[in-house]
């Protein structure tokens, strides 16, 4: 992924606070398979049956505080990524989820999601750190990533980062 001129557009699927990783992908599936496409089909199904069917590729998950709390399962952001969610927006993220998303190159955005309603059309310019709620006619502020993290995101995730033979050196000490 290249962030320069990276524009995302899609519909908001609004969720509440403290959405934990057990809800995002149940422990039942994390043991069954490493197949990301199968994981994706079970996204959020314990709390929102048929959620996967309601997604159009590029749509956004929009949540409240502490999104992704609970277990360290990377299957959670993986399932979101492979369900072709364009980005996750929340007022705050749980720390392991935050790491995992960055490491996988899944865009995550901290912003005041109270100004977004379910079904709102959003436009996001990651390079500028801008979120536009087209439905409400609002522009929302986002917290920019620190440069070290930006490098991992720009590489498309940690695997790509390492693959390019860069190791950690370029990230500074």
């Amino acid at each position: 992924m290249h962030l320069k001129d990276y524009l995302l557009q899609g519909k908001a699927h609004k969720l509440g606070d403290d959405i934990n990783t057990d809800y995002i992908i149940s422990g039942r599936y994390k043991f069954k398979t490493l197949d990301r496409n199968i994981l994706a089909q079970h996204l959020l199904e314990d709390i929102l049956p048929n959620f996967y069917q309601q997604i159009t590729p590029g749509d956004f998950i929009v949540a409240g505080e502490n999104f992704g709390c609970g277990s360290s399962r990377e299957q959670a952001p993986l399932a979101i990524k492979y369900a072709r969610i364009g980005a996750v927006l929340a007022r705050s993220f749980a720390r392991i989820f935050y790491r995992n998303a960055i490491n996988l190159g899944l865009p995550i955005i901290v912003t005041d999601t109270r100004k977004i309603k379910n079904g709102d059309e959003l436009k996001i310019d990651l390079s500028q750190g801008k979120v536009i709620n087209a439905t409400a006619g609002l522009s929302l502020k986002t917290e920019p990533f620190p440069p070290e993290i930006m490098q991992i995101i720009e590489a498309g995730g940690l695997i790509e980062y390492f693959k390019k033979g860069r190791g950690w050196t370029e990230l500074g000490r």
Partner: protein
Amino acid sequence: MGKTIAEKIFSAHCGREVKSGEIVISEIDFALAQDGTAPLAIQSFESMEIEKVAVPEKLAFFVDHNVPSPSQEVSLLHQLMRHFAKKHKIKLYDMGKGVCHVVATEEGWISPGNLIVGADSHTCTYGALNALATGVGSTDLAAVMASGKLWLRVPESIKIILKGLLPEGVYAKDLILYLVGRLTARGAVYQAIEFEGEIIQEFSLEERFTLSNMAVEMGAKAGIMRADNKVREWLKKRGIRSIQPVEPDEDASYAQILEFDISFLAPQIARPHTVDNVVPLKEVEGTPIQQGFLGTCTNGRVSDLKIAARILKGRKVSPGVRFIVAPASRQVYQETLRQGIIEILVEAGAALVTPGCGCCVGTHNGVPAKGENVISTANRNFQGRMGNPEAFIYLASPATVAASVIEGKITDPRRFL
């Protein structure tokens, strides 16, 4: 300006003085993964197209979450772990050995001042041994396998000062449930908690593990304690003789300093479906239960089984209740066998399962039915956690679980002491 324990440990691991808020690339002393996270870590590592694991001697794999394997699919994932571990000379603890966090401490992987990451959120358990230990993801673990290092943010710290001692019949589990209830599930996100107070010194290592284990339920990166003589003695028994404890500076700066008087605390319960939905037990006393679970990295150690046995001795599990016990490790199993604790539990009507995570994570073993209530010593009660989104999980101390399975309803354990 002085430093917190976290700032000191990070400074010692990245070759320069660092402060909270900085993102650093840090040396890792020990890293682990379990059967829910290692397969993905292996896949990520292989996609990095790196030939050799950089630091096999600093890694361990644990087959503990889904054991013995209930299906072909799981067996395949376990096999993948075994093959990879063998090829790269990584220590693997196979099924039956126990829950990763209990085994890692028993086996002497953890020392004070260490910086540890684990592809499991309850890696924070090792904070009780004065280590900065935190949960990470599978790709993180792959990066550690590739380089021995990881990017991490140096956390701000919260100091929690506990005043007074706990009354009879009130345990470390009640205390940590109370704190989670007070701070909430997001009360310490990205931050390290330093636990202080007389009670910490009073507590055995097992009780301290219970406390540090649940730091993550407040969103914390770590839940650290000072290392005292009890830690020294405990580690000595596990072959670790020389330790370098890390103390916070007097003038260290904290995001928050919180004080709690715990001398009047009563037994606590986390109600469904969040860990911070905590109330004093009396508010839910009498709620009928169909299943009890004693085990996990929070409360499956010798002293936990012992207190349950003390209550269950000469009594029976209520006919309408299924009582599942998973000793947290083989060592715990052997020690409780030796002490006659298992005998008492089985006599009372408990069903023993393999040392490991048991039914904590809902992948097999003891999945509750629709509409059923479970009382458990685990650390999480999320909807669906034990395998059924239509069941209800209450979290409590081992004593409360024991008292409740006797009565078939949530019961104050102090009645039995």
